[in-house]
């Protein structure tokens, strides 16, 4: 099943491999993995590389609405996600199973993403020449 919202399917098709795929597997705030993974994505995009993001595992929590730096006074990653558009990073994929396991409906997320079932995730990885996992 492939559900899209907001972005037209043409721009999120998995047969549109980017120069670099960044896989984000860690939740916000608890570690710097998500932040530092997004930093690599942003820098690569600033250099004119085409970058796609795959949210997998706890990385899907990055897409939750209502995040803030709040009482932690620690920068969150939600402004980085909001900024992706300014860096022309438009290919956002998410693991359907990871969302389901965490009880998150795809239309409740802060950005339009394409959710992928497992077999399509393997194909997504294969179609990209370079992948980094964070």
């Amino acid at each position: 099943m492939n559900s899209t919202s907001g972005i037209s399917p043409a721009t999120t098709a998995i047969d549109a491999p980017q120069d670099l795929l960044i896989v984000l597997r860690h939740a916000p705030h608890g570690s710097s993995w998500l932040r530092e993974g997004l930093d690599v994505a942003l820098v690569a995009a600033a250099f004119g590389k085409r970058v796609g993001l795959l949210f997998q595992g706890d990385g899907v929590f990055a897409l939750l609405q209502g995040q803030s730096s709040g009482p932690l006074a620690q920068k969150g990653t939600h402004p980085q996600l909001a900024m992706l558009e300014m860096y022309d990073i438009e290919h956002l994929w998410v693991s359907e199973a990871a969302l389901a396991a965490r009880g998150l409906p795809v239309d409740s997320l802060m950005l339009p993403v394409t959710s992928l079932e497992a077999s399509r995730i393997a194909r997504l990885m294969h179609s990209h020449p370079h992948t980094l996992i964070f």
Partner: protein
Amino acid sequence: MLVHAAPYSQQGALSALRFANAVVERGHRLSTVFFYHDGVHNASALMSPPQDEVQLADGWKRLHREGGTQLLVCIAAGLRRGLVDTGEAARHGLNSHSVEPPFELTGVGQLVDAMLENDRLITFAP
């Protein structure tokens, strides 16, 4: 090669060095080691492990000396964690530094370039 693991905290730093040596022994060229996340601590000039333990810093420097491997340290990840060379110390008004050649502070852009220019990238994580 991309190293995220801190020295002496996680095995990843040692695994990376052992793999690097094996790759070089096989006759491959290891163009770049890029240190990111907690891996930036591998660049500390102040590491002082006991004599009877693995000398990681010597191992990294040997790769540079014998094979010309670039030892690149992410500047943004490094600055946050206290990995600073003389140039950045001046830029930030710090009166000491912790990174010396052959380690070089550099941007993430260099990681992206290295990834696109080389035919393999192997990551060692914590």
